[in-house]
């Protein structure tokens, strides 16, 4: 099934209907009747998108400037969602399975509270990747978020399981209050990475200024980093050989919490 944006929304459009779970088995006409919210007004999916074909195999392609379209793939459990262009906030929120690929940039809250599946952003992502909404202590519960570009603040805030990989830089408070899971940042970490982290792993290939509540352990070459980076390579993520083979500093923290988290910073030579 292919959805093409024909009317750009003036205010954010909440389009939970754009999800393989909702669209599988529907004809194009039926799909166009699914409800969306344009601001606080109820509307039809067909008011904004032209719908072609069916999603028999669970594959849905959406095209156009979707930067004002929110909640695409909300609660998705199966299928494949391909977004050709930019996309708005809350992409793949509470996602449980399947795969979302975005060829452009994504807004804030990518993969909010997701528990399974994989989201790939070819461009940049906004703030709060893999987080919980405010007031909820636990963020991402599983699955994978792969951002080839940069990401904003609070990547992985409160995450408990899963893997987040950022190809460029990440903003401030990356991995703040992490319960567990893994965040890999190939570029620079912003200010105060890992603040309040309980468990989990933050990996960066660049130097970082860490909080004084992180304690230096050693410099070594743990095989797990190679395993993680090679796994990401197989997903199409760019990883240079020197980051596979080089040494990493290991810092334990955050000691204001359980002190069972770790930050691993590349400590080898650079090309």
């Amino acid at each position, binding site marked *: 099934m292919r959805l093409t944006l024909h009317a750009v929304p003036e205010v954010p459009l909440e389009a939970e209907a754009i999800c393989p779970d909702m669209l599988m088995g529907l004809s194009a006409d039926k799909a166009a009747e699914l409800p969306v919210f344009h601001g606080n007004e109820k509307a039809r999916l067909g008011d904004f998108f032209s719908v072609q074909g069916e999603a028999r195999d669970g594959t849905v392609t959406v095209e156009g400037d979707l930067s004002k379209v929110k909640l695409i793939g909300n609660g998705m459990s199966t299928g494949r969602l391909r977004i050709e262009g930019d996309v708005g906030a809350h992409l793949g929120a509470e996602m449980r399975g399947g795969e979302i690929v975005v060829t452009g940039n994504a807004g804030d809250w990518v993969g909010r509270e997701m528990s399974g599946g994989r989201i790939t952003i070819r461009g940049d992502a906004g703030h709060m990747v893999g987080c919980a909404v405010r007031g909820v202590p636990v963020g991402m519960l*599983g699955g994978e978020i792969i951002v080839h570009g940069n990401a904003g603040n609070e990547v992985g805030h409160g995450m408990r399981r899963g*893997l987040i990989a950022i190809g460029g830089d990440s903003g401030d408070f990356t991995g703040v209050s992490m319960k567990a899971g*893994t965040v890999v940042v190939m570029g620079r970490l912003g200010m105060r990475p890992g603040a309040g982290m309980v468990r989990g*792993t933050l990996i960066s290939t660049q130097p970082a200024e860490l909080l004084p509540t992180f304690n230096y352990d050693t410099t070594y*070459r743990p095989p797990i980093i190679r395993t993680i980076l090679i796994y990401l390579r197989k997903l199409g993520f760019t990883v240079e050989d020197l980051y596979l083979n080089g040494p990493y500093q290991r810092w334990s923290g955050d000691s204001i919490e359980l002190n069972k988290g770790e930050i691993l910073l590349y400590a080898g030579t650079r090309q």
Partner: protein
Amino acid sequence: MFIESTEIIDTFAEAFAMWGARVIITGENEKWAMAAARSMTGFATSVIGCKCEAGIERTVPAEETPDGRPGVSVLLFAGSPKGVGNRLVERIGQCVMTCPTTACYNGLEAEERVVVGGKLRYFGDGYQASKVLGDSRLWRIPVMEGEFVVEESFGVQPAVGGGNFLVLGEDLTATLDAVEAAVDAMEVPGVILPFPDGVVRSGSKPGSRYKALPASTNDAYCPSLRGRVPETCLPESVSCVLEIVIDGLDEPAVAEAMRRGIQAAAGEGIVQITAGNYGGDLGQFQLRLHDILQGGT
């Protein structure tokens, strides 16, 4: 049937249903991966005395391993999934975790799995941590050199143990040359030869005159007993017999290894090639030599 001057007896190898697992061991270099693999597959020639049978399947290039380091693939077989699991915990714990720089990954996708890293992790005394990548959970156990990485669980699948053939030679030199050539030819994916360098001289028959022993020497094939046993299986010109035992993840793999081995072993100085069986009453598989050589099983 003859291959050159060697008679291939019209008989079958009686093989048994087992369960198998594949372990990928990696290391800083091939030396250390191989050191762990050799240690893990030591004292694993026969389930009769070792509780499992294990061997090195092949070296694995760095490009194919999960952590991009040189690796070695090990196959381990036992009588049940639980047996495989117990032996993996013992042998990975004692022989791989102890070996510098190594990591240990599941190499077999199978519906049934046994927990290995999930048990070994307790060695970490609370400092262990896990990472989930795709469908796999990896445990990181801190050790004095760094970390030992081991997968939470390993796939196990039904397998075939005890494929075999016996090489009956005119003398020791000819027989050794024949079995060495056979072993070299028997590198088949999914197959191991659990005995020392693939060869066993102490073939056994089931039972013994001593009640405590489940198996005893295969007297019908012992040249030194030709004049004493009630019935010998040795032609007059035979003075040495060596056996090759084959375990595999499936019957076609075992049959293919036998086919290659028999063809390589046959020739000058080898009088007969036959196979060990118990009349077909014990094993679940019958691998007929003539069928195998003619392309069937």
